[in-house]
């Protein structure tokens, strides 16, 4: 008679990983189709509409690219941190501090025009990097859990920005509302044609991917990161300094999130405003973007595009089908759910054996 045999698979091949990932995403879409049905919408029609509006026309594609810029930067930075098993949950706060640095450069540095944009990115990187390093020192020197410190620093960052926009940085032109003044024109990032894509930040993102890829595969630092990420015991044995390695890791990880923040304020908003408006959860979504890439920085380009597409699809669903704005979160959550479940299943192989 036929018996079901479930064996453990030691290392899933790339083919398996890819097909399981794709399958989970499709499963998620399938389940969400039922939500559409619940609202009286034909799911097939809905998905076709979504496809048209996201990848089916030029405008949709530009929207996806635009939306994926901060996701790419946050995601690839987080990938590096996660490779060292440093659980950076603070990309959100690092992004905000980056936007703070960028705002100062744009509005208060008094630099000549041609230096504004470079300084925006430099201070954006620095803001995020410094913010990330606080948690690094706490972990390396005092063994304080980084999940807690990075997460808590998010709230501190939010409140610092709130204080600034309500107080010393409130713009005189803003009729008392909590915004800084608009950045001067030379501090506005150029956009690609008629789209909203602030391409300098996009380039930063791609450069970050290349740099992090090189670091991981070719440098001493990358080697140290990989060893620490696997086993701190082995790292100690190999003579690798935890603090020194994580210092560089978080400098880059926080810095990338900071660049994302700089891009948002200089490329999208052209001012500093309420933290919930600057980051639409990019720091947290970046975690999924990084995790989905399964350790390969180049794949974050794909995963950030995927989530960019989900955000755009959410807009379409709201406007064209009248679904409530929470639908985007349901979408993302459903995908996460299937991905996490499939992650475990990937490690098992199912086969049928004939047994007497």
């Amino acid at each position: 008679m036929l018996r079901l045999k479930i064996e453990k698979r030691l290392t899933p091949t790339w083919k398996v990983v890819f097909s399981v990932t794709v399958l989970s995403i499709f499963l998620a879409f399938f389940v969400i189709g039922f939500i559409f049905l619940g609202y009286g919408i034909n799911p097939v029609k809905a998905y076709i509409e979504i496809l048209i509006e996201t990848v089916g026309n030029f405008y949709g594609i530009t929207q996806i690219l635009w939306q994926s810029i901060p996701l790419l930067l946050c995601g690839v930075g987080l990938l590096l941190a996660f490779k060292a098993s440093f659980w950076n949950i603070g990309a959100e706060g690092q992004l905000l501090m980056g936007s703070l640095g960028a705002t100062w450069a744009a509005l208060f540095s008094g630099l000549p025009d041609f230096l504004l944009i470079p300084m925006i990115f430099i201070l954006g990187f620095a803001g995020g990097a410094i913010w990330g390093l606080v948690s690094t020192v706490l972990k390396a020197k005092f063994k304080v859990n980084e999940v807690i410190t990075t997460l808590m620093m998010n709230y501190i960052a939010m409140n610092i920005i709130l204080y600034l926009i309500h107080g010393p940085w409130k713009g005189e032109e803003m009729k008392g509302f909590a915004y800084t003044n608009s950045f001067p024109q030379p501090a506005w990032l150029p956009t690609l044609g008629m789209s909203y894509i602030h391409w300098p930040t996009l380039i930063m993102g791609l450069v970050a991917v290349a740099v992090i890829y090189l670091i991981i595969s070719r440098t001493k630092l990358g080697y140290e990161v990989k060893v620490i990420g696997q086993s701190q015991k082995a790292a100690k044995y190999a003579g690798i300094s935890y603090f020194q390695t994580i210092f560089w890791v978080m400098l880059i990880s926080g810095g990338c999130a900071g660049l994302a923040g700089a891009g948002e304020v200089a490329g999208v908003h052209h001012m500093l405003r309420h933290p919930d408006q600057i980051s639409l959860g990019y720091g947290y979504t970046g975690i999924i973007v990084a995790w989905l890439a399964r350790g390969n920085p180049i794949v974050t380009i794909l995963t950030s595009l995927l989530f960019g597409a989900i955000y755009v699809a959410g807009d379409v669903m709201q406007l064209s089908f009248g679904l409530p704005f929470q639908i985007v979160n349901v979408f993302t959550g459903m995908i996460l759910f299937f991905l996490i479940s499939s992650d475990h299943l990937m490690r098992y192989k199912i086969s049928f054996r004939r047994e007497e």
Partner: protein
Amino acid sequence: MQKRDAIISMKGITKTFPGGLKANDNIDLDIYQGEIHAVLGENGAGKSTLMNILSGIYRADSGEFFLNCKPVQIKSPKEAISHGIIMVHQHFRLIPPHTVAENIVLGLGTSFLSPLKGIEKSIKEFNEQYNLSIHPKTRICDLSVGEQQRVEIVKALIRGASILILDEPTSVLTPQEAKELFGILEKMKKEGKAIIFITHKLEEVLEIADHITILRKGKVTASMPSDQIAKKGSEAKSELAMKMVGREVILKVEKESFSLGNTVLEVDNLKVLDDRGIEAVKGVSFSVNRGEVFGIVGVAGNGQGPLVEAITGLRPPSSGSFTVKGDVGYIPEDRLSMGSVGDLTLAENSILTDYKNSCFSRHLLLNLSYIREYAEILMIKFSVVAPNVNTRAKQLSGGNLQRLILARELSKNTQLLVAEQPTHGLDVGSIEFVWKFLLEQRKNAGILLISGDLSEVLSLSDRIGVMFQGKVTIFESPFSDKIEEIGLKMTGF
């Protein structure tokens, strides 16, 4: 003498683990009520396996159990507990933030809404009966190790233990606490409980046991009432020690003799504290020269770990000093999570302890092609079997992984080589391989070998240090007429 029936009788217990290791080989054991029965043996002798079988954690491949002369099957810890067989493990299963009472009721199946009801009363009763003095409301993390052990004992008693198994109970106790424990065990014995006491320390066994069984390499090599030994005197003691560690043939390996070179390691009255702040190395002095193997032998847990950590720079000594003339190569005991990184490739693992070397990396970049070539050479020279240098280390068998680690450390050509349990868990072919290369390395280095396997140490070493409870006693070769003495020192005499 009246013939009593054993409360537990084990006959023909055999257990073989996958890989061919026969942990228990046709073992017979009789346990009587009102008796403390010590089961003695080195690491790997099979005593833990036997006790795990008795307490239901493992299942024997063959053999029978009799409880009160009736055949029983013990298929799970729950069944063992129902027969009154309860084990107190060497590593306690307690939850530090919870109180004594909370730990005791865990899993007991008390009332859902008020689980602690009645517990304080029971604890008080046990306290009085056995002189335990533990307070129900204290948190485990605030108790001393000895007190924690007594909580474990109460856990067993409250579940109706009539046969109590204690696994190396004094390994974590101070001498004073050990004395208190023995007092408690005497009381329990008088109440008719049967106590099985697993240990490797011969001298304390003679103090407390009524009956002694010695295991060696899975077989029973001796079993007798302890008063028989006391009568025979010191001769009997050394005979016992030999029954535990075995009489070995020394020259199992072809050994070239090398001329001694300069001193590469000098250890002077070294003292090291362990993680709990207790002195694990109590003033050790020895030296190692180029051209020789100095083997430290002892049952695990006598301070070898902290000693090695101190010498390899992973743990600072508390006092005393050591000097290393040159570099150190270190083959750690834990090859999976320390000696290698499972998810990295063979090439990446081959430079783990030497990656900063200018051949392998310059400025910021790794010299990837050189590293690959280097790994390939190592693989060939040390016969590491793997598809290619890009295979991940976790895919290697134990023997191959050890060859890789050996290859890496030996090829560094350091002045001192520290090898910690280098053949632990390996197949025969790999063991011989490791021995061959260690001996060969004597032409370049002094080798510090740490092992619990006496035959290995006797075969490889030029000089031996026996380590027991943090102290080392040195023996010069030849060893053939000193084996009894060595055995005794290993067991604490």
